[in-house]
């Protein structure tokens, strides 16, 4: 337990079709277990879709890449 670390994370995500939550969670999961996250900026594309900025705090065990 002493090896737990909390890391801030900033991600950019191109939104694909379908529900948004699974897309965000999949993007975050690559970095660890999300403790807290939010979409903090969103820019809609003229051709459809959107570019999202996600800020998060990720929980990782020590030594985890």
């Amino acid at each position: 337990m002493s090896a737990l670390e909390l890391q801030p994370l900033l991600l950019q995500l191109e939104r694909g079709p379908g529900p948004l939550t699974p897309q965000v969670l999949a993007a975050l999961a690559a970095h660890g277990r999300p403790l807290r996250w939010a979409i903090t900026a969103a820019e809609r594309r003229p051709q459809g879709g959107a570019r999202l900025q996600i800020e998060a705090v990720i929980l990782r065990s020590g030594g985890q890449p």
Partner: protein
Amino acid sequence: MSAGAPLPTLLVIPTGIGCELGGYAGDAIPAARLLAAASGCLITHPNVMNAAALYWSDPRIHYVEGSSLDRFAAGELALRPVRRQRIGLLLDAGIEPELRQRHLQVADGCRASLGLEIGPVVDTDQPLEVSLSLGASGVSWGRLGQPGALLRAGERLKAAGATAIAVVARFPDDPGSEALTAYRQGGGVDALAGAEAVISHLLSQELGLPCAHAPALSPLPLDPDLDPRAAGEELGYTFLACVLVGLSRAPDLVPAPQAQPGDLAMGQVGALLAPAGALGGAAVLAAAERGIPVIAVHNPCLLQVGAEALGLQVLPAASYAEAAGLVLALREGISPAALRRPL
């Protein structure tokens, strides 16, 4: 379900994003009280209800820590109303002895004057090392240097019979900072909020208990220009009383497969309210993806993540008063569209 029966409603006002209403010391409580009356059942989080030395208790309002509220919205948790919780008090070893004593006296006062069940008290085995930070957007986030120490103390409290946990962490004093000055005068973001959320999220997620946090800080010098929205935080020596009152009747967190009749589940929720510019959070997206009406309330904040950018269908409301009207319409089975012209 008959028209007029309570309509479980979620109220989300994210912490640390500088909301004009709800971004200070429990200054969304009046809106929460109104929405509780309109819905008959309001589920909301500590940032809405915590006003440091001030608090409001209403059996129609369910006090649920933010990450647990997100898990409720995702359908992972149900909420089980209780008559009372036994609140364990978790204190950061980094709190100085006199400030620690102040917090113990708040617990004593809440036991003696309000009849709350509080105890045991556990100190962390090393200082938690809280630091404050802002994200790329200016949102308050914050760091916790020793998360393992927090969890070890929480597990000791749970093993000792605590059914909810109030945690007090020593936060850095920065009385001369521009951010604090702006906050006390009604501008900017609550710089403490992000680290507070990290602490309560971690405890609640790992232990499965209702949790809430109060920062321990040295008293500030008198500010004659103090904004009324921040005044609740300058009435005493601690921010703990509201947390203890909130947790005293916070619902139990039940894994969804273990839900029983009488528990609250996301399938019963009839509406969610959030600031119109802060729709990019887990609970809002979960509600929208389930087809639950999302009421986007005009409440200026640091973010501009609105319905159009996210492709969400929402009911707009110019104020929480208008939003309460929409909740009442939904509760009574009245189509919100019928209340607007042109039809």
